[in-house]
């Protein structure tokens, strides 16, 4: 009895989860694995269409012969790089006509011309002509010939399914002189974006955790950048930072704080002199990181605030009795209470900043030293059009991500054991 019940339970469970599992498998897991497959292939963006035979039909009347008509088919292989095998052709014609000197590859049966064109090599082109005449010498009706659509069939390999593999993509990824720079940029962006967001999150949460009027208003306002669509925010920031007509530059010029506009999103380096030493700051990258912090500190704020509100008031009261000042209280009570949240936040944000694509893409498009790994996937795959390379970079991302996740779950597991 219990056995059959558990069987029913199992069956129900599979029925309930199957649709969700299938769709996630098809759209998320399958692509991750097929990245591996594609990354070992040389595929260009223009090759992913499966090659097909095409024909353009032109109907022409023949001079001085009313009963005859000339039909030209411009045949071609749509692919510039792949062959098509076993091309078959078929076209239907009106009842009262017959072909004259039909090509030997074809035959005419019951008003249909059927041809076997055999194999077409890549870039194949042919001008194929058929003459028709009416059986009884009547005047031919041109219109009727245009009615039918030509049918063409052929077999071609799907370039994604062939079995030629190459290591070239990975070789290119790792030997590219930019790869080190790419990793470094990604690391800067991820690390400083994460740390900045958390620092601002702590500051704002500490603030909002006090009692003042308009507190709930401030709380919702602080979440606006996180909730609003990236596209709108990125374009607003572009207008704000534009070197010529941007608000920020014009304000700074107006107050004589700078004497010429700064191209905050388009300048790779800016020199800063500190105590006579020259530092090169990556300007565009810094701006992008600031946008990142602006957009994601609300999340850190939300988490830390929730934790702060759960800190027992008695701790602070006890500290007051001991005569501790605000600074001591912050360091010795508040910070230890939120370290757990901060470390989890750090891991989550680190992984997500590492994955971030839209923000940089919309602000700079990856120019002026802001190209991170995700931007590079897009650049390789769709700007340059090398799908194989794009997939190879995706694989690098996935591997690094798995490494980060391993650390993340280890840390979480440790925390779970401790508490």
């Amino acid at each position: 009895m219990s056995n059959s019940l558990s069987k029913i339970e199992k069956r129900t469970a599979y029925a309930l989860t199957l649709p969700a599992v299938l769709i996630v498998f098809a759209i998320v897991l399958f692509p991750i694995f097929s990245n591996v497959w594609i990354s070992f292939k040389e595929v260009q963006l223009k090759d992913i269409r499966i090659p097909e035979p095409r024909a353009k039909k032109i109907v022409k009347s023949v001079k001085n012969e009313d009963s005859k008509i000339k039909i030209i088919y411009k045949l071609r292989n749509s692919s510039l790089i792949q062959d098509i095998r076993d091309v078959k052709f078929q076209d239907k014609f009106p009842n009262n006509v017959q072909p004259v000197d039909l090509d030997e590859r074809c035959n005419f049966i019951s008003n249909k011309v059927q041809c076997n064109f055999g194999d077409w090599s890549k870039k194949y082109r042919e001008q194929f002509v058929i003459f028709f005449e009416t059986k009884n010498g009547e005047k031919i009706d041109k219109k009727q010939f245009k009615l039918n659509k030509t049918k063409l069939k052929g077999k071609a390999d799907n370039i994604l399914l062939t079995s030629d593999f190459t290591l070239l993509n990975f070789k290119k990824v790792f030997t590219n002189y930019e790869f080190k720079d790419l990793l470094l940029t990604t690391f800067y962006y991820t690390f400083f974006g994460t740390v900045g967001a958390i620092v601002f999150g702590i500051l704002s949460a500490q603030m909002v955790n006090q009692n003042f009027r308009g507190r709930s208003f401030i709380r919702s306002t602080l979440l606006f950048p996180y909730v609003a669509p990236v596209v709108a925010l990125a374009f607003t920031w572009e207008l704000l930072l534009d070197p010529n007509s941007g608000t920020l530059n014009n304000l700074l010029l107006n107050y004589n704080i700078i004497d010429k506009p700064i191209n905050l999103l388009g300048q790779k380096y800016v020199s800063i002199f500190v105590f006579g030493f020259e530092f090169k700051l990556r300007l565009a990258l810094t701006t992008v990181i600031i946008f990142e912090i602006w957009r994601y500190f609300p999340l850190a704020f939300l988490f830390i605030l929730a934790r702060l509100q759960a800190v027992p008031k008695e701790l602070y009261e006890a500290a007051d009795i001991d005569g501790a000042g605000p600074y001591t209280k912050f360091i010795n009570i508040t910070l230890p209470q939120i370290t757990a949240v901060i470390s989890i936040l750090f891991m989550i944000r680190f992984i997500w900043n590492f994955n971030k694509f839209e923000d940089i893409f919309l602000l700079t498009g990856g120019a002026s030293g802001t190209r991170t790994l995700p931007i590079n996937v897009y650049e390789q795959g769709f700007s340059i059009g090398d799908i194989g390379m794009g997939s190879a970079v995706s694989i690098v991302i996935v591997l690094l991500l798995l490494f980060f996740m391993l650390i993340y779950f280890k840390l979480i597991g440790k925390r779970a054991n401790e508490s």
Partner: protein
Amino acid sequence: MRVKSIITFSIISSFFLFSLVSIWKILSTLQGIELKTLNFNFYFLSGIIISCVSIFLGKKLNKLSIVIILSSVFVLIDYFINSSLPIWHYIGTFLILLFFVNKLSKYNKKNFSYNFSVQIIFFDFLTLFGIIFFSFVILFPFYLMLVTSFKTQALLLINPLDFSIDFTQNIKSLFKSYIIVFTEYNFGKYMLNSSIVSIGTVIITLLLGIPAAYAVARLNFFGKHFLSTSILIIYMFPAIVLVIPLYTVFSQLGLRNSVFGLLIIYTATTLPVAIYMLQGYFKSIPKELEEAGIMDGQNWFGIIVKIILPLSLPAIASVALYVFMIAWNEFLFSLMFLDSPSSFTLSRAIQFLNVGAETPRQYLMAGSVVVTLPILFIFVYFEKYLVSGLTSGSVKG
């Protein structure tokens, strides 16, 4: 001790005054007023004078009179320094001063003899400063977005700092950018597409996610543990690593350029988080209720519809809102999968406007307002649900 505290106090408070006045000046400058300097020295000095006066005279005069006198004197000096500014600027300055001196009047000589008075003052002002700083920094881009949509490109090129809106014109010319965005740029259609995609995603995600989450939360089956851990892992993979294979496969299947294809992708990418959030909630529902349901002869469908659903409406609402937000704001997939303007979503349409021929910026910003307003409205209106969605689904962002 006291002298040191008083000096720190006056310096900190004058910094605070300076930042308050500066923000007000920046906002005034953006209304097209000629203000060429922030006048740091003057405001800093006045800040120190005001705070000292307020401390030493605080007890001798009554509070109200000191607040009004100090503010008026300050505004008068301000008037002599930059005369010929519109009256509302001075009124604003006066109100800021009232607020500032009112804050100062809470401190008197006694406050400065405590042990940690410097720290307390520092933290007090840091909080005040922080609130103003954060609100300004957060809201400024939104303000800019809104105001730009009411200006014209030509006027902004003449004076990029004049964002004043002419309210005397008739409504039609005031909202011209919005009318054009909806008529010429077809934003009505895009808005419809966005709504269909987002609402469709929410519905399908819930339809598939609720049963799956229930199974993960309650039933025993082989692979349950594997499923519940892999949900989180899958969820952490970014869209960018899915884009190339999906693009190639969807191109070959002819699924690109359709709202339907987008719907499938959004559903698949939001399902893991929906299941993760829902199963957590379902586990907190007492098992006895379902056992009672089983006694009554309900099958799993009955149990989910009659017992689980009514009990977990708040959780479902926050999942729905969260998924809606993700789908509405999504950009990468709509960029990759939509080529023809008839199937654009709002995000894609705005990007298209920006990349295409020189679109005047007021239209771009009007479009941005159109895509931002609904989501902000929903957020403010359903804040409670969305915030809990954000917190529990926050592994993504």
